[in-house]
């Protein structure tokens, strides 16, 4: 293969050409500031409004329930800190899980330093939380439950409907980080009783640096970035119109192609899993069926993930050990440890995430190379 094979769509995706095309007019033709009174400003504002309602509609939300941000990290920070500070008179207890993205976990750590108490729900071997544990953990002073919808490393999809019902019955706000699932599977915030939801654009063929937070009408929340009062005062800064247009166009494409992509990718992914598991001492991490259509995560005993990724890279294949964010980190994946994996299994993990453009030929090439590379590293290893 001459072309590289990109199998790290969970880290980030290329911008779809149609998305870039849609963005082009908003750099210097329609470049206005949405806050300006004049025509350039009004045009920008109208564009913003239409993108907002387009994306909101896709979620079953109202236009005014969507706040644009710089990405999922900021949305997570806004959801947690914003709700925590705005509701601290009702209690200072927050519930999340042990398998959240760093954007949630580090924010929770910060909140703990600022007087909040956080409970971390454990997960079973497949990465699912225990609904009973959730019920029992909710207290009188619990103000927020935040649960990752589909995990970024192992792809496990939570039982969001049941979670939503529990939170609704207990009258506590439910936030979910839906970054990995948004644009891949349909979501209706009302059917699921979700109060706040984090999404971004660059995980489904939109541009980087753009995200949003869905905030159900009536949820009390305060801003994290203070300033000129944009986004109904919840997120100040000159609005990145071209980025939001790209986000909205990515949604348009998802509306039309999501179903088809899901079927195609699930099939490819299942084939991939089946073949990879033929390698001795390999295992699949995450849930066998309740998982993102594009995610596979493996552990190979006796070898370490970074080496594996770099040797695959040498052969023109791009994967990751876990989340891209934790790459320079020395600790093994907190997600895999939470599943009950031993440290060596957690160190030896490989995340393969496919995308719109992934072909069977690419997967076959990968399947051809992988056993080789695993074998080579095992030869170097003192472990047997």
């Amino acid at each position: 293969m001459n072309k590289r094979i990109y199998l790290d769509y969970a880290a980030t995706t290329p911008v779809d050409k149609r998305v870039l095309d849609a963005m082009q007019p908003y750099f210097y033709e329609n470049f206005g500031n949405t806050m300006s009174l004049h025509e350039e400003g009004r045009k920008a504002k109208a564009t913003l409004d239409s993108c907002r309602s387009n994306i909101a509609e896709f979620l079953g939300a109202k236009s005014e329930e969507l706040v644009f941000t710089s990405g999922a990290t900021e949305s997570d920070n806004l959801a947690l800190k914003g709700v925590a500070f705005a509701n601290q008179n009702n209690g200072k207890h927050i519930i999340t899980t042990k398998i959240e993205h760093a954007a949630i976990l580090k924010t929770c750590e910060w909140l703990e330093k600022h007087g909040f108490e956080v409970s971390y729900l454990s997960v079973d071997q497949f990465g699912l939380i225990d609904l009973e544990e959730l019920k029992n953990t909710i207290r009188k002073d619990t103000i927020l439950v935040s649960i990752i919808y589909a995990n970024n490393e192992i792809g496990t999809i939570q039982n969001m409907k049941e979670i939503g019902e529990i939170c609704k019955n207990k009258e506590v706000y439910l936030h979910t980080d839906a970054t990995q699932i948004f644009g891949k599977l349909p979501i209706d915030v009302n059917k699921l009783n979700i109060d706040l939801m984090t999404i971004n654009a660059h995980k489904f063929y939109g541009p980087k640096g753009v995200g949003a937070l869905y905030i159900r009408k009536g949820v009390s929340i305060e801003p994290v970035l203070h300033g000129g009062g944009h986004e109904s005062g919840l997120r100040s800064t000159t609005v990145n119109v071209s980025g939001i247009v790209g986000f909205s166009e990515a949604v348009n494409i998802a509306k039309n192609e999501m179903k088809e992509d899901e079927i195609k990718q699930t099939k490819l992914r299942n084939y991939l899993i089946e073949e990879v598991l033929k390698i001795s001492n390999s295992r699949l991490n995450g849930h066998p069926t309740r998982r993102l259509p594009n995610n596979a995560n493996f552990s190979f005993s006796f070898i370490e993930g970074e080496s594996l990724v770099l040797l695959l890279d040498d052969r023109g294949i791009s994967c990751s050990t876990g989340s891209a964010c934790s790459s320079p980190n020395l600790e093994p994946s907190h997600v895999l440890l939470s599943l009950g994996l031993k440290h060596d299994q957690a160190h030896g993990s490989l995340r393969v995430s496919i995308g719109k453009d992934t072909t069977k030929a690419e997967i076959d090439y990968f399947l051809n190379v992988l056993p080789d590379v695993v074998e080579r590293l095992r030869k170097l290893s003192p472990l047997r």
Partner: protein
Amino acid sequence: MYNEKVIEHFRHPHNFGEIEDPDGVGEVGNIVCGDLMKLYIKISENEKGEKIIKDIKFQTYGCAAALATSSIITDLVKGKTLNAAMEFSNKEIIDALGGLPQIKIHCSILAADALNEAIYDYFTKNKTEIPKIITLKHERITKMNELMKEKFQNQNE
């Protein structure tokens, strides 16, 4: 994040594998941390009658830096006198590799430690008096290892 030299050693490591009947074996690091190194050495004498490291091989479980530092330490030490090898410092590895990322410096320490442990093992097996420099390092390494184990055991609970 890695330079060409590191990547080259990682891609094509030198002297990997086991020595059948080694004179000393050093094993350092642990799976929990993600790096485990095993160095095998074979000792003989040169024409001057000095002890030399005749052969050295490694087996390593770990990241690219762990593999590269393992590979290069075998190059750097092979053929050296035992006396010279006892003075070996991880800086030589870093220099020979043309630098390592800050967070990977510990891999070079690990490799130097593995050498120390292999030499310690050689002296122990031969029941000769163990030079002070080797014993001191050995004690530090054992201590560290215990601390790490403790730390991670607690984390796993």
